[in-house]
């Protein structure tokens, strides 16, 4: 649901809680004030173009960019000069997939991905299919993870790239990227991972984990919007991508365009904070997430967690509240910002394809809510959210003919529904 800045008014209730509460940190995160502080000088004072080699304005900008690169590198175990700075993860995904597809066309035309990937990956793959590439979309198991045996079987002598995300944006499940990396290395296939949700939340080491390309973005880790990076491995093997944006030859010719210096400073600082604080923060977030889960599941019957809890981002909870439609639930908790997999909240009027891929029925997909707990959420907020969600679900179930029928013992699956609304 979109919120116009003009209508975003905060009010304070008991326990110092400010409403509305933001708990949609998979969509984007607020900036960490420490990040903003570092960025500010690079708008007016140190505004130079990092490509200006012959005056101090340019040098200052270049120095800031280099520090930014070092900090990004440190977070993911890479050496410095291995990033292509982009406008964000959608561009990084496009560049990785299209760039590899073009560069390695001689070697093969087959790409493997999974059905639960972000649209930035899926739609890029679909476009490549129009240009003669072959794409295998791996299914996922009930918990949301790909089956490594499926992947093994899918790789053939024409396969050039496997692109599978590290953490899913809806259900937060962590794909076995280490095993996938190892397998790809053994089979001589490049491995790209969309690391947007995972980087800065769980440890990822591109060298140890055999990752050849990885997309990251600043605004999911408390940095600014509009800047991201693509890690491209430099040796063992040396990976190359064809550019999708041509021009002045920036970023070693792989992505032309004047560098977004304040953005890179922000991305770098966000990575530096994550490097320092990730271990402790993930424990805190998992604690808050489990508190939310336990409070909800302790009070309500017939709620179902989507995706495995075992391999999951610490701040993610995705729950279906049976017999209650997601958008009406969001309406009832309109002082809390979360997302729903319900069709009514999407542009396509289709319920979440990610939940459908898990085998979740359409009815439960319509009933799902994604909670994304982040750095700035508090225990008092979690308690408030749990109470508001539970009382709203209880109220809507009193309104729900499905809940009434289920309580009467009617098997909803056996009912012949009179009309199709779409």
């Amino acid at each position, binding site marked *: 649901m979109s919120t116009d800045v003009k209508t975003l008014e905060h009010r304070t209730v008991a326990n110092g809680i400010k409403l509305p509460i933001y708990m949609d940190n998979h969509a984007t995160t607020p900036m960490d004030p420490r990040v903003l502080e570092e960025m500010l000088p690079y708008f007016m004072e140190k505004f130079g173009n990092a490509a200006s080699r012959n005056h101090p304005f340019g040098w200052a900008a270049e120095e800031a960019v280099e520090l930014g690169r070092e900090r990004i590198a440190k977070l993911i175990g890479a050496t410095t000069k291995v990033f292509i700075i982009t406008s964000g993860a959608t561009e990084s995904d496009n560049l990785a997939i299209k760039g590899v597809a073009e560069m390695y066309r001689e070697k093969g035309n087959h790409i493997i991905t999974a059905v639960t990937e972000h649209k930035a990956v899926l739609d890029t793959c679909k476009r490549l299919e129009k240009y003669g590439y072959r794409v295998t979309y791996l299914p996922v198991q009930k918990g949301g993870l790909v089956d490594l045996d499926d992947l093994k079987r899918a790789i053939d002598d024409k396969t050039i790239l496997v692109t599978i995300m590290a953490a899913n944006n809806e259900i937060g499940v962590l794909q076995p990227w280490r095993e996938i990396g190892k397998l790809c290395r053994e089979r001589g296939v490049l491995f790209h991972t969309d690391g947007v949700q995972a980087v800065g939340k769980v440890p990822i080491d591109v060298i140890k984990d055999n990752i050849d390309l990885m997309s990251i973005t600043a605004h999911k880790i408390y940095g600014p919007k509009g800047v991201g990076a693509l890690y491209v491995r430099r040796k063992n093997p040396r990976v190359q991508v064809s550019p999708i944006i041509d021009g002045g030859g920036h970023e070693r010719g792989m992505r032309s365009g004047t560098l977004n210096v304040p953005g890179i400073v922000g991305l770098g600082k966000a990575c530096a904070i994550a490097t320092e604080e990730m271990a402790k923060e993930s424990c805190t977030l998992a604690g808050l997430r489990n508190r939310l889960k336990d409070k909800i599941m302790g009070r309500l019957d017939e709620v179902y967690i989507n995706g495995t809890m075992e391999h999951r981002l610490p701040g993610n909870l995705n729950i279906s509240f049976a017999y209650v439609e997601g958008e009406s639930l969001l309406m009832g908790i309109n002082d809390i910002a979360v997302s729903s997999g319900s069709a009514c909240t999407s542009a396509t009027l289709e319920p979440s394809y990610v939940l459908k891929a898990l085998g979740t029925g359409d009815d439960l997909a319509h009933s799902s809510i994604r909670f994304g707990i982040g750095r700035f959420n508090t225990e008092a907020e979690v308690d408030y959210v749990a109470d508001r969600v539970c009382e709203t679900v209880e109220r809507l179930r009193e309104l729900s003919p499905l809940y009434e029928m289920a309580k009467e013992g009617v098997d*909803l699956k056996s009912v012949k529904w009179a009309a199709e609304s779409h």
Partner: protein
Amino acid sequence: MAYSDKVLDHYSNPRNVGSLDKASTDVGTGLVGAPECGDVMKLQIKVNPDTNVIEDAKFKTFGCGSAIASSSLATEWVKGKTVDEALSIKNMDIVKELALPPVKIHCSVLAEDAIRAAISDWKKKQESTKPAEVSAK
């Protein structure tokens, strides 16, 4: 998406929530929509057998706020009308009253379907309870 004040009002204070005895011959029940589509409405009417006036109406709805508002409004509108008058309620009347945006028109269609389904259920009951009259025709 912004909701109209009327949708918000019906969502927050739905009218006529509940159930009537569906076994009663005076009660007609309409159950429309499907859980897979994200909307199910149950609308029930209680009809005075002498006057054909709808004396009571109840609903329960699984669906978005607009679906809840459409069915809540439908129960308000059918109450006090005769069965034939109720049949003249059109989905576009609901769209207008609630200021539904185009993507929510299907909610109003479903509400109209629910009214019709309830009336047709009631009519079926009347026919089966008056076999003599039917066969005399």
